[in-house]
């Protein structure tokens, strides 16, 4: 099956080549470069469609794995390896499709930005990295692309780096995901240590294959839990970081400082979903450990409700959507923990469409309002921006879970599994669904209905966005509406494709779930309408919710002060640690100086003692003795003839005596 490796190569090369072009001088011809980068993404989309075709229609026997040796040691080697299985193929499609639409949207949105060529370069780089992540067969390759994604996210969030808040947000995102990445890295190390392989699928010897899993299960206990438990926990921590679950969710809302299309692509559809994807990929490992799936479910549920609560009190259009994303990711994790990869993937699939739709729609709104992002200063945009309005409403409805739209189907599946498995997370999920519907209604009503509450200038400039912006919205709206139909319980194409295990469908419970979902959705909708219809809410004080919840509302608006909590605890801790390090360094410096001084003193002493006294002394003494002897000898040379004669005579006499004595 050689053709698929070529397709894989093309798929990855498209965006990366576009990025490289961007680095080397696309700045001179930005418009042409934008077309090139869009072309790259389109190529990737075609390739992913090709994969879907290959896997869906042609259905090859065996797994499509390719690898090449990267580092060869004496007895082992670390290869770079790629795999295309249904999981990867679905992700490829989602990523490239949404990316293409985002690229097209961006070409209009970023038209007036002078660094737009750079923007497209980064965006292409990101897309290439994401695609690389999903087709990786080796944890090494996976990590490489994962880190690339982190870098791209940093570059894109901080794209408008002159804004200090943007630069800070980029740093925050990078560092927070880094904390998660440490866990993932540690997990990789431990896996390699025990199994000696980093490959997922390797003709039976891969990490996800039964042999290695059995090996890992047999590996000893650490601190009460098994080796595999710790490895999976660490990997989950990595996913928590990337997907913005509690406690590492703090970077996602701040990431809204970046351009809106970036938020749409990265922080709605793809990068944050990479954490979920990782979990789905490593699911065979998680299946084999007791208790971890429950943990995942709980983390997801708690995150979902927490983020949902914060979302209802936000006033920035993008912040609401950001917290919504966090909440929906929590739901995905619940689906993974309670059901399996198929459920999480399905929700990811539908979420990608409607969330990116919502983000792009908000981008369109922001564009129309000349940069205004506060929903209290919007309103009545329905008349001015009909296309945007229509698309947005469809997206909002899908998110809320209005029946027959995509979100309904995927959330329904998850509710069902949660109900079957863990009751309490199920209840949390229900509450979350209610909140979701509520805050989306709130947002839609405040933005599109009623009277315009902004400044006169903005009102003057209100207009529908150009087609470059609205076309992607419409396309996404169609998908948001209809994509769910491939995953209905009776005709689960999606599930079959992903090779989800066949569950017995308990029809009554399932219908109950559907009804519950519908009820919750409509309930939230009505609540929102009741509170916000025909109200002129200009400030936070005017907000009806504020009147209802009082200071709790303010607390939620301040995002439950999680950042402040981190600053007070971790921040202080880091401060103290830094100070201690500083003192330690001063101490070291001191020691260094002392040692230096000691060495210097020793050298001085050596100089004085050895060089001056001893060596010089010896030398001087030697010279002195020679001098004295010379002086002594010179006394014999006194010029006196009589003296010479006497000496000669004495010498001869003594010689004679000696001779006579000897003889």
């Amino acid at each position: 099956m050689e053709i698929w490796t070529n397709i894989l190569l093309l798929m990855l090369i498209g965006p990366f080549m576009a990025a490289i072009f961007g680095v080397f001088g696309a700045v001179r011809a930005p418009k042409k470069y934008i077309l090139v980068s869009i072309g790259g993404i389109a190529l990737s989309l075609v390739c992913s469609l090709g994969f879907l075709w290959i896997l869906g229609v042609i259905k090859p026997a065996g797994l499509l794995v390719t690898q090449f040796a990267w580092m060869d040691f004496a007895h082992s080697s670390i290869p770079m390896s790629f795999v295309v299985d249904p999981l990867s193929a679905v992700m490829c499609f989602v990523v490239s499709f949404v990316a293409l639409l985002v690229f097209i949207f961006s070409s209009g949105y970023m038209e007036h930005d002078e660094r737009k060529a750079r923007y497209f370069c980064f965006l292409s780089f990101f897309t290439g990295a994401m695609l690389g992540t999903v087709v990786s067969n080796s944890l090494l390759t996976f990590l490489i692309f994962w880190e690339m994604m982190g870098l791209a996210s940093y570059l894109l969030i901080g794209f408008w780096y002159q804004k200090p808040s943007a630069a800070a947000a980029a740093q925050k995102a990078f560092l927070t995901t880094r904390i998660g990445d440490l866990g993932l890295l540690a997990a990789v190390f431990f896996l390699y240590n025990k199994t000696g392989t980093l490959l997922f699928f390797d003709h039976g010897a891969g990490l996800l294959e039964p042999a290695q899993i059995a090996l890992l299960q047999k590996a000893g206990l650490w601190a009460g839990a098994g080796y595999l438990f710790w490895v999976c926990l660490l990997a989950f921590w990595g996913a928590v970081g990337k997907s913005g679950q509690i406690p590492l969710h703090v970077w996602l809302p701040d990431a809204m400082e970046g351009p809106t299309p970036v938020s749409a692509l990265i922080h709605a559809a793809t990068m944050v979903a990479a954490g979920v994807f990782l979990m789905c990929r490593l699911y065979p490992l998680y299946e084999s450990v007791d208790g971890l799936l429950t943990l995942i479910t709980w983390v997801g549920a708690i995150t979902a409700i927490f983020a949902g609560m914060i979302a209802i009190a936000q006033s920035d259009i993008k912040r609401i959507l950001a917290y919504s994303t966090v909440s929906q990711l929590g739901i995905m994790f619940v689906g993974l923990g309670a059901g399996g990869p198929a459920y999480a993937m399905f929700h990811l699939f539908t979420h990608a469409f409607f969330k990116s739709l919502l983000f792009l729609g908000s981008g369109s709104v922001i564009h129309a309002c000349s940069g205004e992002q506060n929903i209290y200063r919007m309103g009545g945009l329905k008349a001015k921006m009909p296309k945007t309005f229509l698309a947005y409403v469809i997206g909002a409805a899908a998110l809320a879970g209005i029946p027959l739209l995509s979100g309904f189907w995927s959330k329904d599946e998850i509710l069902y599994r949660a109900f079957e498995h863990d009751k309490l997370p199920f209840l949390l999920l229900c509450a979350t669904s209610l909140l979701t519907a509520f805050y989306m209604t709130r947002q839609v009503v405040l933005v599109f209905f009623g009277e315009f509450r902004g400044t006169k200038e903005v009102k003057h400039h209100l207009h529908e966005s150009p087609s470059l912006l609205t076309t992607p919205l419409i396309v996404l709206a169609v998908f948001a509406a209809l994509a769910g139909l491939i995953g209905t319980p009776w005709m689960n194409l999606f599930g079959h494709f992903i090779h989800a295990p066949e569950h017995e469908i308990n029809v009554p419970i399932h219908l109950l779930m559907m009804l519950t979902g519908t009820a919750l959705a409509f309930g939230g909708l009505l609540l929102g309408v009741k509170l916000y219809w025909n109200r002129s809410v200009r400030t936070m004080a005017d907000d009806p919710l504020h009147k209802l919840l009082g200071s709790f509302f303010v607390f939620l608006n301040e995002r439950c002060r999680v950042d402040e909590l981190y600053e007070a605890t971790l921040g202080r801790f880091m401060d103290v640690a830094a100070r201690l390090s500083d003192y330690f360094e001063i101490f070291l410096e001191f020691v260094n100086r002392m040692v230096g001084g000691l060495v210097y003193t020793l050298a001085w002493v050596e100089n004085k003692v050895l060089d001056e006294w001893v060596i010089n002394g010896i030398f001087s003494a030697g010279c002195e003795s020679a001098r004295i002897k010379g002086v002594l000898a010179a006394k014999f040379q006194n010029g006196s003839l009589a003296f010479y004669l006497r000496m000669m005579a004495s010498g001869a006499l003594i010689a004679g005596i000696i001779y006579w004595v000897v003889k």
Partner: protein
Amino acid sequence: MTLGFILIISAALFCIGLFGVLSRRNMIVILFSIELMFNAAHLNLIAFWRFGENPLAISGLMFVLFSLAISGAEAAIGLALILRLYRHYKSVETQSITELKG
């Protein structure tokens, strides 16, 4: 008259000469003493020749003859030197000529 007797005389003569060389400060007297020592040596030689194995060999005499001649030459040169020194240093005392010292 034994050989030893003559040898004692020559030894005494030699020691007198040595005494003069070592103790007198006047250079001319030193020269006298050197002459005495020479002659003592000659006497010694003659004594040994006369009392020796071959008292008729002429080589003994010859030896002494030539030695005499040489001592004479030496005396002459020594005296010339003394004259010169006297002219320069205005003195024939050994202690006044001490410029060549270390």
